């Protein structure tokens, strides 16, 4: 860590919602009073033991937490085959794919719908990419009896049809978004347009640790259950903290949820894995940190894929959940401070990671954490046998089997 490192990496953002130069509240004036209301209500909820108790209770009995911490011994052995003697780190998974609805997204949705209820809001909107956040939002809306509108890019509607049907079964209205290229960015634009026209009764459940303050902070806080559990479980099971944490990053909420509780453990290294799509050298990737530059979009200042005039690029990934040209502002700050290392994995590499986990551990992962798995398979052989990698297995792959089959040339 360099000399300018802060005393703690866990006290961001400041009271204006800034993570260093990033974050903030770059929204239209119509939304500003609402954002300030949300912040006030969130502060009150943080002080309210009843809020925390209800959150914890739902996570335990509805979501199924704590999620297991699993020692992937067969995968560990498989990766040691390519390692030098004495090398090949132990691989452990935080199994958030076992949550109700099959991904980490539900943790955040439970927190936000409790906030919506506190604020007396009667209608919920959300954006979704892969559909995991849409399904999680539709789920909590069904659970709490609130109407739900999910904006989803038309292209994503096509490539994630099982999740579209799930949302409809759960009673949500799914609005296909055709503006732009019809992916997550465009869905977020339309969700913001809905919100600005319905501020009086509508709560916007944002699915990742991005958007205007206080969203990046509160989404992170709700997702921190992942890292808090993992930290305690690792100490109990292995008697030590992990040496390296790995998680995939689209907007970055599953990674922050795992990383944040460890940020002040100086010996724990962290690696965030972006989607390199068809390769970082071209424009068909979604690696905002590795291939982008700072700018302002969707309410926050962060790293973006953009051209020299500040027009936002579309980006590309096989994984709809990583297909977003921005990233949560806290990751931008963690990159600039050097606390977290970031890398990127291509579509083809992620498909290898996907298949490797299926074969070695009997777990079908989502394409998003398949990116993290590939990073695990690259790093583990370079680490000692007594070292531990903890990866967030943040989603299961049921939704992706059609995409994978097509890529592998299998007719279903």
């Amino acid at each position, binding site marked *: 860590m360099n000399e300018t490192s802060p005393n703690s990496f866990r006290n961001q953002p400041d009271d204006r919602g800034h993570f260093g130069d990033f974050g903030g509240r770059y929204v*239209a*004036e*119509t939304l500003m009073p609402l954002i300030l209301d949300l912040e006030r209500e969130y502060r009150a909820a943080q002080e309210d033991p009843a809020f925390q108790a209800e959150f914890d209770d739902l996570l335990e009995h509805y979501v199924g937490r704590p999620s297991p911490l699993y020692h992937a011994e067969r995968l560990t052995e498989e990766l040691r085959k390519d390692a030098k003697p004495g090398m090949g780190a132990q691989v452990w998974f935080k199994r958030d794919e076992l949550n109700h609805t099959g991904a980490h997204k539900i943790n955040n949705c439970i927190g936000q719908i409790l906030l919506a209820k506190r604020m007396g809001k009667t209608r919920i909107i959300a954006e979704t990419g892969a559909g995991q956040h849409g399904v999680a939002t539709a789920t909590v809306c069904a659970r709490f009896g609130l109407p739900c509108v999910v904006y989803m890019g038309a292209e994503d509607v096509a490539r994630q049809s099982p999740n579209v049907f799930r949302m409809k079964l759960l009673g949500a209205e799914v609005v296909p978004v055709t503006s732009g290229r019809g992916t997550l*960015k465009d869905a977020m634009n339309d969700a913001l*347009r809905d919100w*600005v026209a319905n501020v009086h009764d509508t709560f916007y459940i944002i699915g990742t640790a991005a958007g205007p303050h206080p969203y990046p902070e509160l989404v992170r806080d709700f997702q921190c259950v992942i890292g808090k559990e993992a930290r305690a479980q690792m100490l109990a099971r292995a008697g030590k903290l992990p040496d390296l944490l790995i998680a995939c990053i689209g907007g970055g909420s599953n990674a922050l949820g795992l990383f944040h509780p460890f940020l002040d453990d100086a010996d724990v290294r962290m690696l965030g894995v972006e989607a390199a799509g068809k390769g970082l050298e071209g424009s068909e990737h979604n690696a905002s940190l590795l291939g982008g530059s700072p700018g*302002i979009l*969707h309410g926050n200042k962060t790293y973006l894929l953009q051209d020299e*005039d*500040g027009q936002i690029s579309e980006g590309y990934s096989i994984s709809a959940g990583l297909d977003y040209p921005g990233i949560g502002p806290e990751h931008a700050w963690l990159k600039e401070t050097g606390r977290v290392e970031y890398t990127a994995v291509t579509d083809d590499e992620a498909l290898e990671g996907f298949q490797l986990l299926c074969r070695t551990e009997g777990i079908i992962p989502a394409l998003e954490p398949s990116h993290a798995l590939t990073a695990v398979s690259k790093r583990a052989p370079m680490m000692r046998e007594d070292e531990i990698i903890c990866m967030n297995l943040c989603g299961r792959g049921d939704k992706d089997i059609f995409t994978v089959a097509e890529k592998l040339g299998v007719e279903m």
Partner: protein
Amino acid sequence: MTRLQNAFSKPHAAFVAFITAGDGDTAANLDALVEGGADVIELGMPFTDPMADGPAIQAANLRSLGKGTTTADVLQYAYEFRERHPDVPLVLMGYANPMIRRGPEWFANAAKGAGVDGVICVDIPPEEDDALGPALRDAGISPIRLATPTTDAKRLPQVLEGSSGFLYYVSVAGVTGLQQAAAGSIEEAVAALKAATDIPVAVGFGVREPAQAAAIAAHADGVVVGSAFVDLVGEHGAKAPAKLQELTAAMVEAIKAA
């Protein structure tokens, strides 16, 4: 007196006309608005993600970007407009990212050099003024802020702080070009705004007909029309200027009679 002050010192409410830069024949469209009698010109800077805009202006942004419009092109339209129309105030309206891409000072100085009088940035609220406001004020450009139905009396002073030129009252909570506010609610809101500031108050969002413009002009210092013009450009392309001039003239006539 500045060009903007002049425009708001006339015996009638000022008519503020918006089009998107790079959509259709921009120079001819701008000239048509002036010919029709517009008092202030708002030139939209196209952006890939115009979150506060409805379908009409979204489509105009995409048409413009599809033709390859750059920031340099927008500034060139402004510069040439200023050469042709030395006295008509010109305001750039758009989103933060294209404005800060090369740094706020670069943008403020380039806009000043192009003869721009004011800048409306949709997604920089007073809380984030540092991102652009100081650079604009240093360059002598008016940062024009938006007030909305959700801006309450307690918040209003913060919105007014550091702004100049005029205050843009967004009459409905929503995106551009769709709903329209009830005349009564506008009258009340404008009265509250004018009690709080000496800056002229212009009202926009959802104003499409001369009769609506007249109703607003009876209370406000200015009336803003955007989507109705942008629709004409989208529909008539190269033949839009005559239509723009016609609608502008009808709006101005209605406003003068109000």
